[in-house]
């Protein structure tokens, strides 16, 4: 089914999409039908900048296990960095 539920967060950073690098301002996260990944449902992440248009997007479609592993790896990476570097 389509879940219709979407998490949205503000971002500070950059992403590289089909048209090159762009400044990323937002991300949406949802579990729904993927476009390319061969599964009924997937954890989807869209890193976007709506002000630049719909094509300024980096999309991810992951199975649930991969998505959790990615999330935990991001947290481990950040936890291992000296606090002073995180402020830059």
């Amino acid at each position, binding site marked *: *089914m*389509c*879940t*219709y*539920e*979407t998490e*949205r967060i503000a971002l500070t950073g950059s992403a590289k999409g089909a048209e090159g690098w762009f400044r990323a301002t*937002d991300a*949406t996260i*949802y579990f*729904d*039908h993927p*476009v390319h990944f*061969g*599964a*009924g449902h997937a954890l989807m992440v*869209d890193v*976007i900048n*709506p002000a630049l*248009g*719909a*094509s300024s*997007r980096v*999309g991810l479609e992951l199975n649930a296990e991969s998505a959790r592993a990615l999330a935990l790896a991001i947290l481990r990476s950040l936890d291992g960095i000296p606090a002073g570097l995180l402020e830059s």
Partner: protein
Amino acid sequence: MTSNLRAETVHFDSYDGKSVEAYVALTESDDKVGGVVLIHHMPGYDEASKEMVRKFAANGYDSVCVNLYHRQAPDVSSDDAAAAVRALGGVTDEQLVGDVRAAAAYLRALPNSNQKVGVIGFCSGGRQSVLAACSLDLDAAVDCYGAFVVESRPESTMTSLVDILPDLSCPLLGLFGLEDEYPSPDQTETLRQLLTKGGKEFTFHEYEGAGHGFFAVDRPSYRPEVATEAWGEIWKFYAQHLSGKK
């Protein structure tokens, strides 16, 4: 029957005065024919949806699919448009009804129209097909595994259609997988009871060995034997309700 057809992208004004993009496939028959409005699924106005539009024309119906995401995300790929519209909160029921109304008017204005128009939708479009049939004067509606017809989605704008089911304007064909959880067989039974109580004309088929998305040829949920049988039901249903003169 296989008809010659012509397929192209067109633009026409919708309910809000804005021009919307649509993909049409028109039969090249001089005979009067019925029309089908296809509502694309939530992943977008994509190749799979356009293929179905052509399938309807090949089977003798003028067919159109409005790009529901055109207003917010014109001239981008279907997946980028779907992501952008989702980030903005999705398509409202008001827009859906307005765009289907405009699409039906487009079909009825065609020189070979017999003035009969059906609607069909898959997944999110299944609910929207029922919504359109409860809101507009249509001649036949097909709901392919649409969820949230008889129940609302908590913390979502996706609301139940129970209150408007008495306004259903045409016969309804429902095609569901018994292994689907949204809609579940229990929810389909609830819809069956509501339609029966309301004296509405409907036919439901529930298929064993199929879950959600059994028509989707490009997804692992595809069940070819079930889909073939269900397409047969669609052709029978539309032949009954969209042929002849209105």
